């Protein structure tokens, strides 16, 4: 089997069925990397949140799943990017129960809690990129 550190999957997100593909792929990769069941669930849930956000706010974008290597450990990196409207107020987007889309408003802060590293880059009008990592 291909080692996780050089595995990469890019999934174009254009519809609900693409979200499903991304979740299944995330499951497979985290399983292959020998993440614990709870972490597999965190990773799949994260991918689901991020992919759904792309669909909801930008219409389309891409999710990239890949292995990553740190100084002393290995892990998995998830990048979700789109060229949608972007997030005007990133601080609010990261606080609980704030939603500009009429939903629970727990997605991004939840992802931040589930992952080990979290970075949100967004520019209004230019798009959004969320990069997260989970270490083994």
């Amino acid at each position, binding site marked *: 089997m291909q080692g996780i550190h050089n595995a990469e999957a890019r999934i174009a997100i254009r*519809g609900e069925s693409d979200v*499903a593909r991304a979740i299944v792929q995330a499951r497979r990769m985290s399983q292959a990397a020998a993440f614990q069941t709870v972490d597999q669930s*965190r990773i*799949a849930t994260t991918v*689901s949140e991020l992919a759904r956000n792309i669909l909801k706010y930008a219409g389309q974008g891409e999710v990239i799943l890949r292995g990553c290597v740190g100084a002393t450990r290995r892990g998995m990196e998830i990048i979700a990017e789109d060229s949608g409207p972007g997030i005007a107020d990133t601080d609010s987007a990261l606080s609980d129960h704030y939603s500009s889309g009429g*939903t*629970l408003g*727990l*997605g991004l802060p*939840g992802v931040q809690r589930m992952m080990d590293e979290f970075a949100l880059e967004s520019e209004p009008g230019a798009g959004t990129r969320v990069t997260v990592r989970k270490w083994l």
Partner: protein
Amino acid sequence: MSPLDLAARPAEKPLTAAQMLKLYQLETADLENIQSFGESVVPRLDDYVTRFYDWMETQPEFEQFFSDTEKLDRVQRQQLVYWQEFFAAKVDEEYLDKRRVVGEAHARIGLPLQVYLAAMNVSMKLITGNLYKSGLSPDQYATSIHSVSKLMHMDCAIVVQTFSARVNRIMAEQNDALMEMSTPVTSIWDGILLLPIVGIIDSSRGQDIMNAMLAKISKTRARVAILDISGVAVVDTAVANHLIKITKATRLMGCETTISGISPAIAQTIVELGIDVGDIQTTATLRDALVYAFRATGVEIRQAP
């Protein structure tokens, strides 16, 4: 893909003739080149058909698709018409429609796309080589070939598009069929409903589940329902939101829903997401949910002595 999802992603609108001409850089001069090139080729198309089928017979697909002579006859006649229209080079909506019909016909019989493209390649070679007998200067000849190949590429693209549109349509239909099978609300006891959910819940499926549950409650007057999610791949905020809404709606109809099959991993992610499950009844196993349901409906289970 459910109908809702299809609406969210409309089928790509086919381009108009004018847009196609622009896309393939076919200008009036190109169409004229094709027409005058055709003057030399069209009278010899019978020869083309003969040579083309000499090649076709060498292909493994030949037997499969052209075993009966009547069919072969019909296809050959259509092929003649096809090239006559090609060299008439009148690219309008009708022309595009006819190309789509050609693609649809090939896709329907299951002809591999690569055989179709190989056949177009052979046709190109025959038409510009063996069939061509005219006194164009080398420069004029090269320009004509260029124009002919532009139109051939456009025709091929239409056929390829028709093929892939067909595949997408089949996928969407299969998805719909799967969705219909995936909400089997069953009345497992007087007043008790069970719906096991497997796979991924998206918004249209969430809506399907809601509709199926409420319809069944109104039909069976069930007091208790069990939604087993042990087979669900992911419970993210959207899925949790759906589940919460479903339990609220069933409660309004007098039916208390228990969500069973919460694994340790799912329990932790729900907490980390910060979802407030409120007073929703949840259990780790389906068995626990059943015990609860029997108690709520006044059924007593006893071991036979």
